[in-house]
């Protein structure tokens, strides 16, 4: 039984080491600024000061946004994406490219996230813009306001957990019972 114990100890240690590593710090790198004001929630997010704070945003709102760079960007390109667990990479939310002499831009955006996007889940959204000033990149941790049971995805996930956990327990118990019977029952 000793090797088995070592396997369990190794797994638990691995779990502890991996689980204790925190997410990357959120910050804005490069000569640029970006911020947004949520009109209904009265929430202001400044990418340069948000740090590692988790931002809770409403499922539906209107955002006044603004961004600026140090000097005329010239040819520029950029994108914003949702970080997925490794090795799945990222899902691009939006991208842009063009040529401009303006050093700032702003606008208002209405958004309404569908019900299947779960509330209370910590998403990491990153973005970058590459222009003649260099690379401006940033990351923010955010979650949607509300609880996990607001999304049908939670019920499906729980049902699938039970659907796989039940048979797994039954199979392991059956194997253990068979092994005990073979060992102690006087099987030839």
């Amino acid at each position, binding site marked *: 039984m000793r090797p088995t114990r070592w396997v369990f100890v190794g797994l638990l240690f691995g779990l502890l080491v991996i689980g204790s590593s925190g*997410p990357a710090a959120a910050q804005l790198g490069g000569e640029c600024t970006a911020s947004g004001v949520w009109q209904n929630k009265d929430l202001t997010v400044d990418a340069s000061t948000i740090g590692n704070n988790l931002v809770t945003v409403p499922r539906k709102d209107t955002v006044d946004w603004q961004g600026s760079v140090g000097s005329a960007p010239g040819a520029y390109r950029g994108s914003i994406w949702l970080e997925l667990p490794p090795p799945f990479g990222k899902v691009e939310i939006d991208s842009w490219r063009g040529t401009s002499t303006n050093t700032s831009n702003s606008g208002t955006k209405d958004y309404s996230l569908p019900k299947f996007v779960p509330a*209370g889940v910590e998403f990491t959204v990153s973005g970058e813009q590459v222009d003649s000033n260099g690379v401006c990149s940033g990351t923010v941790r955010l979650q949607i306001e509300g609880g996990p049971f607001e999304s049908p995805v939670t019920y499906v996930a729980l049902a699938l*957990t039970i659907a796989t*956990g039940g048979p*797994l327990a039954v199979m392991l118990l059956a194997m253990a019972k068979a092994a*005990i019977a073979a*060992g102690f029952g006087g099987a030839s």
Partner: protein
Amino acid sequence: MKVSRLIGIAALGFLFFGFVAIDLVLFGVLALNSVMVTVLPFIGLLLCAVLGIVASRPRTQPPA
């Protein structure tokens, strides 16, 4: 020990721990981009395979 049953248990362990990882994300325990979301199913696969081997091994009668 039946190898097919052991593979079945390991596969179920992979799926079960995978759904547990999704549950942990949905309940806000793990971040969506956490490496644990990827690692947990493989821990389940290994753990259940080891448990399957241990459970299927006949016990020896203790000496009197």
